[in-house]
């Protein structure tokens, strides 16, 4: 059969906050072998399972919406794949959904984050923060660069429980690292926890569901 694309949605929490993207990639690869998912292998000199993540999650952040695409070479019901995956990891990696992808990862335009922690921000600070250019020093390959991140902030709102919800640019060309955003808003030494909560596509100058 033609390899079938399967999208896996999972939560990454707890001790996995300290595990980098590359380490997560390796963890998933060994797990897929363990639970005998018929994953499609590349056919090069060094065959390896073809698996693609939507986007790396910064170290120390949690997520409720991580996405991972695999291709399977034999028919297997999604409930069965989900059941096997649920037994393949510790509780810190919790499988939420297994489905056929409808959008390509290339179409991801924005990501939503919830920022919680030991800080206090009020409406005035938010309004002031959003009212002008936000210039930060960004380390790049060619040295430090002063950039304005204001255009990459789509929305920012204070929740009644003291947390912040923000939608930031997550497109390939102008992705904004939520860690940089938090430092700009809360200061370098602030104590915060970032949780990625959702993905969006662009549509008619607005944002819409990514699936």
């Amino acid at each position, binding site marked *: 059969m033609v390899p079938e694309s399967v999208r896996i949605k999972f939560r990454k929490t707890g001790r996995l906050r*300290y595990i980098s993207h590359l*380490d997560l990639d390796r963890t998933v690869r060994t797990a897929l072998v363990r639970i005998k998912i018929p994953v499609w292998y590349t056919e090069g000199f060094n065959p390896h399972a073809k698996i693609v993540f939507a986007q790396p999650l910064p170290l120390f952040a949690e997520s409720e919406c991580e996405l991972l695409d695999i291709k399977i070479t034999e028919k297997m019901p999604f409930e069965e794949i989900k059941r096997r995956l649920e037994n393949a990891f*510790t509780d810190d990696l919790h499988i939420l959904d297994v489905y056929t992808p409808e959008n390509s990862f290339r179409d991801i335009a924005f990501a939503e984050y919830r920022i919680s922690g030991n800080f206090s921000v009020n409406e005035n600070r938010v309004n002031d923060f959003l009212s002008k250019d936000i210039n930060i020093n960004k380390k790049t390959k060619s040295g430090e660069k002063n950039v304005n991140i204001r255009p990459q902030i789509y929305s920012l709102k204070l929740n009644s429980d003291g947390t912040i919800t923000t939608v930031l640019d997550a497109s390939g060309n102008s992705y904004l690292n939520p860690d940089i955003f938090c430092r700009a808003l809360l200061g370098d030494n602030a104590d915060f926890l970032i949780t990625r909560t959702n993905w969006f596509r662009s549509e008619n100058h607005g944002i819409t569901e990514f699936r």
Partner: protein
Amino acid sequence: MKLDAILKNVLKPGRYTGGEYGQVIKNKDKISARFAFCFPDTYEIGMSNLGMKVLYNALNMMPDVWCERVYAPWPDMEEQMRKNGIPLYALESLDPVKDFDFMGITLQYELCYTNVLNMLSLSDIPVYSFERDERFPIIVGGGPCTYNAEPLCDFFDVFSIGEGEESLTEMTSLYISMKKDGSYTKSKFLHRLAKIPGFYVPSLYNVKYNADGTIKSYTPIYDDIPEKIQKRIINDLDSAPYPDKFVMPYIETVHNRITEEVYRGCIRGCRFCQAGIIYRPVREKSPEKVNEQIKCLYENTGYDEVSLLSLSISDYSRLSKLTEILLEWTDNEKVSLSLPSLRADTFSKELMDRISSIRQSGLTFAPEAGTPRLRDAINKNVTEEEILHACSLAFGGGKANVKLYFMIGLPTETYDDISGINDMGTKVVEQYYKTENRVKGRHPSVTLSCACFIPKPFTPFQWCGQNTIEQLTQKQNFLSEKITDKHLRFNYHDAKASRIEAALARGDRKLSAVLYEGFKLGMRFDSWDEFFSYEKWEKAFKNAGIDMSFYANRTFSTDEILPWDIIDIGVTKDFLLREYKKSLDSVPTPNCREKCSGCGANRLGGVTAWCPKVSE
């Protein structure tokens, strides 16, 4: 949580979080003994150690025991822990080590000794055993260095001598039963433990010294404990407990793959090699058992690489059968095999074809010495022709890189032997160009890697003094100037670190004072170049009033009582002495399969042993 806050400030926080797939979690309320298994080096190294996996599994097979893992935190983490009042904790429960019943520390190499003291201190546990009352865990040492753990005697309550799969369960069972019947006190427990074979309780033996600093006597303080501690062995490897799963590290470790032990011991008896003597008698697993265990681990880990472990894999008597049954399924599942510890004399085209069937691992051979004369003296029975033939096979198989291991400073060595290292390297390069079916258009790269000889307890060379640093450096420089071929690369070990290893390896109880001085100087991670400081070691020896050369460079008399004579490893001192004398005449000894040389290890038993006397 305090831990969360500090993990943001350290390198590789994944070393300190635990929570890996495959870790063993038990209900604390249903446990009678908690065992903190400590590896005194980084997570990446400790997680790659097979012995630790085997014993973690063996202990956790006991329903009333919970064994957890502990590794040495890197200095950046240590700083954060000390600053924030976080004591050393175990990765599964994150509970402090000081609340455990046992703290087991594996001693794999001498340069980790400073980490041992530092880990005790980080646990808020007094380093000296006499300072620890009933509130503290029993500190037990194990691993290869316990065959002479005298330098650590003041810090440990007990050493487990030999293979621990059975003895550690006996130890924890005794502890649990004494706790249950109310007879437990630490001193009663240690006394009873000392009567079980394989347990050395150093505080129960008095040592007297002669005026010249050598040992006069070892005397047990009770009549009912043995005068010598006999090492434990597993009689039948096929029925010994072996892990059916591994803890899967999230972060990259040194060996992140299936490791399968194929046999224990070695038939060769190279005269410098401690492992080849202390793990005797040779005992093999059956190919069917090896295959079954690998298959099980493959299914439970998902690793795509298998490493077959032993001291010399090509000496496994049924290697051909084993690779045959493994390749029946590993190829299809895209699992690759790697065979470390290949001997040049038994390396074959067939074997190479099999291991290169999916991915080819690098090829390394260990001639150890540059001339036939010295190879005979050290009993490394491999000829130049065999080495060149093996290299030629490798070159024909598409390889252009070969690494050759040698030693500098071996007993009876002359400058001719050192020149011989360069000669052999040059011949291997020539062999490359003589190999018709080599890959055309490439040039060879031959690495000559030279370690410094370190005299080790329980080897025929245990009496030999090490070359001084000056002698070793001179020899290294001499060889460096000899090597002119542009295809040869030369690297060598630091003579200073080798000297410390020699002093600790042949040390007696007086060296506890040196280790304590080192601890006070803040020494740790001495097996890491960035932390090893010879100057600090010199200072620690000086502060303790101990002469390093007495242990490192002195040729011990064959009549004197050696610090490790208290341990009975099966192989007799007579055999070692016979071998030592033969080495002085450059006479080799046949391997165990050719002829029994009466080493004595067969006294210990061992089914499926390759010892003719046991097989009869």
